[in-house]
């Protein structure tokens, strides 16, 4: 079969598969009416997004932060305070929140980028806790009582709804949007720079990559996306408090990425889709009798993954026979050489 046609058929099959999945997700709120179940989806969407934010820094750049809940919290607080104190529009306040978080992260971490590996992680924990402590001690931030968003009727302008359905769609769009951004970064010059830094910082410098510059970019983007999730969370729950930023929440934000496969942009999404519903199911049904059972399960899953499949679920899948089967029989993916050949032809055509 002609190479170009084979690739064309593969791309078409891929598009159909993705389209089907998106369609299913788009239609779920029509079939599922229970707010409890819809809430689980919303949870998956924003936790996966937060995890993707973490993964830019952790999985792609190799800098493991255990303080990401603080960025989400800071974004939420910046946004809520602006709304409450000045009556600003929540959407704009959300952008403001993202900018604030980005600035704080960039400025604070600028000197911290000398730190590698465990030291970076330790600073991220200390920094996260510090932000939380500042908020607890500050009347401006509402201390431990937190900040509530104003009540009112349903409105897109103010991003508040009684039903969970609009949040479902916004959350889904947010997750997809962030995914596309991360995917773009993954394939770009910056993505390669970050991955090189992750593998070997000295080799990166030898190639011409300024490690500090790229790490800061990664931190700022990662923090801003976390801030975005903070804005979403605040608009959804309508109330935020310092509990949002405790260490346990930071750890929770990382688990979907590790379980799903930190080396892949899709990892956090897969991890989230699998672990979060499971965890919520356990929490809803068993935490009365056995409190903490859901996190216990999460911990066991994490340990099992790290011990036996450190590359995560996706890491296992990418090398599995299942994938080979899916690629060959269902998607009709042509061999790599053919894909490359057609890609190169495309490039040359562009030149002429």
């Amino acid at each position, binding site marked *: 079969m002609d190479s170009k046609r084979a690739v064309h058929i593969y791309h078409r099959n891929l598009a159909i598969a993705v389209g089907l999945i998106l369609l299913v997700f788009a239609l779920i709120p029509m079939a599922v009416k229970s707010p409890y179940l819809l809430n689980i989806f919303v949870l998956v969407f924003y936790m996966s997004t937060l995890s993707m934010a973490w993964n830019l820094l952790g999985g792609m750049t190799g800098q493991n932060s255990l303080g990401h809940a603080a960025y989400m919290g800071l974004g939420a607080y910046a946004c809520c305070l602006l709304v409450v104190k000045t009556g600003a529009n929540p959407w704009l306040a959300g952008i403001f929140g993202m900018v604030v978080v980005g600035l704080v992260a960039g400025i604070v971490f600028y000197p911290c980028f000398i730190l590698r590996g465990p030291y970076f992680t330790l600073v991220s924990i200390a920094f996260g806790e510090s932000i939380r402590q500042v908020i607890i001690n500050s009347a401006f931030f509402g201390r431990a009582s937190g900040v509530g968003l104003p009540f009112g009727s349903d409105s897109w302008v103010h991003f508040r709804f009684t039903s969970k359905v609009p949040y479902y769609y916004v959350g889904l769009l947010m997750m997809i949007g962030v995914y596309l951004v991360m995917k773009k970064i993954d394939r*770009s010059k910056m993505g*390669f720079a970050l991955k090189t830094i992750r*593998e070997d910082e000295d080799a990166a*410098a030898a*190639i*011409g990559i300024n490690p500090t510059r790229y790490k800061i970019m990664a931190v700022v983007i990662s923090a801003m996306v976390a801030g975005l999730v903070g804005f979403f969370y605040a608009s959804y729950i309508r109330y935020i408090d310092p509990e949002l930023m405790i260490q346990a929440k930071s750890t929770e934000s990382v688990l979907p990425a590790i379980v799903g496969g930190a080396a892949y942009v899709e990892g956090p999404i897969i991890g989230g889709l699998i672990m979060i519903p499971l965890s919520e199911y356990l929490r809803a049904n068993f935490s009365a009798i056995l409190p903490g059972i859901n996190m216990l399960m999460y911990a066991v899953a994490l340990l099992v993954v790290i011990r036996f499949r450190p590359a995560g679920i996706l890491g296992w899948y990418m090398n599995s026979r299942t994938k080979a089967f899916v690629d060959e029989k269902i998607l009709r993916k042509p061999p790599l050489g053919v894909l490359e050949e057609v890609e190169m032809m495309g490039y040359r055509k562009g030149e002429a």
Partner: protein
Amino acid sequence: MAEAPIIEVKNITKRFKGLTAVREVSFSVREGGITGMIGPNGAGKSTTFNMICGYYPPTEGRIFYKGQDITDKKAYEYTNMKIARTFQIMKPLKNLSVLDNVVASSYFGHAGAKNVKEARERAMEVLQFTGLYEKRHVLSKDMGTPDQKRLEMARALATRPEMLFLDENMAGLNPAETEDAIRLIRRINESGVTILLIEHIMQAVVSLCEEVIVLHHGEKIAEGTPEQVMNDPYVMEVYLGTKKEDAHA
């Protein structure tokens, strides 16, 4: 040929907390040629190399590239100056494929690719040139030593250097692989790249280098053509006495 030297090193010294690893070493590298640096283990070759490549600064002394003082330049500024290096302890980007390794470096340097298309094309070209094209989809951590060494060079070449520093590229290769490496290095030089290399394998030094610098205990003890150096009595006493056995290893 009285060409200006492309690299000039003036009296560089490196002290590490009480140990003087390199003491007042000076030499120059002719543009367009292949120069070698040899010496017994611990002579200070890698330290000198690392200083010239900006890995760490010399305690004293200055380094010039095409007349410009580059002593204080940071390591990541080198490819912008058209200088590239490889590492003695290989640093493949383990979890990336061979292709991705080279695509990564194609984006950087003075002629960094502007987009994915350019980066991939350049990567393919470099892979063909270094003979790694067939293995381009292999994960770099799964490759054997000779291929990883070639990957080091491929990554360096993708940044389009004029000056290439090779740090013991032939350690651990068998005779056939060494011949391949020698051919590749010659091809790189013929394409217009000046080369400074550290080597232990005398066969490679003799067949490649037009000029050799000998270091011992952190000092330069001889320089000249390979023949001159090999016949220098002090060099023979200090170094080549053991080297003759090594060359057959």
